């Protein structure tokens, strides 16, 4: 690959990444429970995406492709490092507060999401945060539509229960 081609790829990749970098970063952050590994995984996702950008199938949605890379890296991380140094959502200082009062419902939802299995948590955030369809989540995670619907149903029930108990 000559230098000109690399530069062209770099510009094209940067342009494609720009609109999705925030949802991608937040997806990784949420899926990894605000772990300190978030930055490493995000950085590695971008580098991997760029490295294989030449092989990216232009017929495929770029966002789905990048999330698939992130999904694989998150999965690797879960297998390799069982213990994560993570912080609670409250500690992360990202909870919107109204008049200095922290929104307890959001805390409950995120606390319930943290209790989900890693794979389920990933599906939960892909659907509820990133607004992917069930079919797109299937492409990213390799799970069947039935499994995804089941996972979402379970997550919903768990959160509903938690909110009912605490309200």
């Amino acid at each position, binding site marked *: 690959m000559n230098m000109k081609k690399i530069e062209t790829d*770099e510009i094209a*990749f*940067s342009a494609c*990444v720009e609109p999705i*970098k*925030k949802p991608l*970063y*937040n997806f990784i*952050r949420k899926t990894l429970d605000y772990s300190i590994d978030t*930055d*490493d*995984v*995000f*950085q*590695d996702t*971008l*580098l991997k995406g*760029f490295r294989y950008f030449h092989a990216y199938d232009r017929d495929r949605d770029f966002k789905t492709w990048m999330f698939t890379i992130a999904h*694989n*890296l998150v*999965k*690797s*991380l879960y*297998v*390799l490092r069982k213990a994560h140094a993570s912080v609670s*959502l409250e500690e*992360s200082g*990202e*909870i*919107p507060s109204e008049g200095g009062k922290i*929104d307890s*419902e*959001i805390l409950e*939802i*995120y606390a319930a*999401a943290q209790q989900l299995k890693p794979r389920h948590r990933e599906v939960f*955030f892909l659907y*509820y*945060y990133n*607004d992917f*369809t*069930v079919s797109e989540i299937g492409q990213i995670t390799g799970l069947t539509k039935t499994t995804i*619907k089941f996972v*979402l149903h379970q997550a*919903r029930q768990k*959160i*509903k229960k938690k909110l009912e108990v605490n309200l």
Partner: protein
Amino acid sequence: MKSTSFDRYLKKRVRSVESEVPGHLEFSLIKNKLNESPGAFENVLPLTRRPYRHFVYGAAAAAAAIAALLFLFSLFQPGIVEKPYTGDEVRFASVEGVPADTIRIQTNNPDMVIIWVEKNK
């Protein structure tokens, strides 16, 4: 999937929490760092997806390779052969103390095992 009111409520709540991408994670900066020290990020995360999968694949590949080798070996391994040797090869052979000029060998490995020696004259 049909979106219920609870779904919409969850989406709204979940999306209300998000953070900006830190400045040091801008792609151009990451790329520059990579250009300055190639390979710097190679070990951030291993390329492997699931190490145990590689172990299983490796074990399966090794088993298949051994099976293939055994199969090939069975194809090329000669059965028991019977072959007469004469001349120099039998210069030192003897049967019951009498020198023999021909021996007949019946073996899988003619170099190693002589199971029968016959006096020819």
